């Protein structure tokens, strides 16, 4: 009887829990029919366009309702001199639960830090003073730097050669989409795959 009650309570908690997983660099329902792996570079203008124009409706229509599971991956390109440092700041911010906010700040202020090279100045406002200290310490942490490198390795294994590249995963099938896609067609595709 007690076991049934505990199980029921657990089930009710699971059902009531929000679908958005607020851990590190993933959003949405891990059990969603489709997973979207987004390989992105904070210094790339096309990634900024994707972040500003495609991501908001994508999150609203597919990720937050639990129809897709979004996984961010860092893919700083060699030709962008500050991209790896920016990715390291983003991963460090993920460790204090501020990945999304810092990612937004990086894209919004892309032109500023790209010109000055002062990345931290552009993201500081997204963090509390305590978080700022933690993030500044974390960017030097080898495990944070290694996480960026691991994402790049994963991207290379997936034959990512440009950013942004979004890999749509449905079961065993993978559909890579390079560049910011037309949202009308992307929505139609995701609706078809998420059935």
């Amino acid at each position, binding site marked *: 009887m007690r076991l049934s009650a505990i199980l029921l309570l657990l089930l009710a908690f699971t059902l009531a829990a929000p679908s958005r997983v607020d851990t590190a660099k993933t959003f949405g329902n891990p059990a969603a029919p489709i997973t979207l792996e987004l390989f992105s570079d904070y210094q790339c203008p*096309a990634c900024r366009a994707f972040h500003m124009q495609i991501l908001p409706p994508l999150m609203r229509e597919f990720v937050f309702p639990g129809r897709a599971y979004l996984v961010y991956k860092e893919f700083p390109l060699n030709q962008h001199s500050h991209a790896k440092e920016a990715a390291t700041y983003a991963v460090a911010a993920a460790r204090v639960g501020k990945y999304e906010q810092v990612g937004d700040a990086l894209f919004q202020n892309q032109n500023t830090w790209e010109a000055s090279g002062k990345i931290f100045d552009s993201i500081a406002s997204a963090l509390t003073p305590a978080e700022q200290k933690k993030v500044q310490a974390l960017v030097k942490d080898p495990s944070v730097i290694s996480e960026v490198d691991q994402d790049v390795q994963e991207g290379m294994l997936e*034959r990512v*050669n*440009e950013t942004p590249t979004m890999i749509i995963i449905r079961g065993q099938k993978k*559909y*890579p*989409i*390079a*560049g910011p*896609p*037309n949202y*009308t*067609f*992307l929505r*139609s*595709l995701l609706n*078809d*795959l998420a059935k």
Partner: protein
Amino acid sequence: MTSPSKILKIVLFLLRVGIGGVFVYAAWIKLREPWMLFAISIDAYHLLPEWAVTVVARTLPWVELAAGLLLIAGRWKRVSTVSVSALLALFFAMMVRAYARGEAIDCGCFGPGEAISPWTLLRDGSLLGGSLLLTVIAFRRPRKPEPLTAENLAESSYRPA
């Protein structure tokens, strides 16, 4: 001893079957995936409005399939070689334009995941060269005469009024 014309025949046969095979493969890759994937690749070139992208994405793989099969079968050689050459010339021009403008986009040739690069330009340029050669030869050779059948003979024979 193999005569030069025999060698040429073999080369042309291999070229025809090779290019036809490439077209059938490209069509099959696109047809087995949702059409929206191909639409996203076409749209990346920023050449067509959305409605036209939809039409092209839904029909072009079938055109590629038909043209490829005709080329392999060696039927309607003038129609098939002209169709394939026209399609390849169009694809090649679009790819050169995108590459020259520095657009980092997928070529969309064999489904998603292949960026336009010097390699894709070389490949499509070579295919275009081969198909143009087949087209020229298809038009230089006289059409095969109608086979002599009783029906044809009756139709062509003189009938007094």
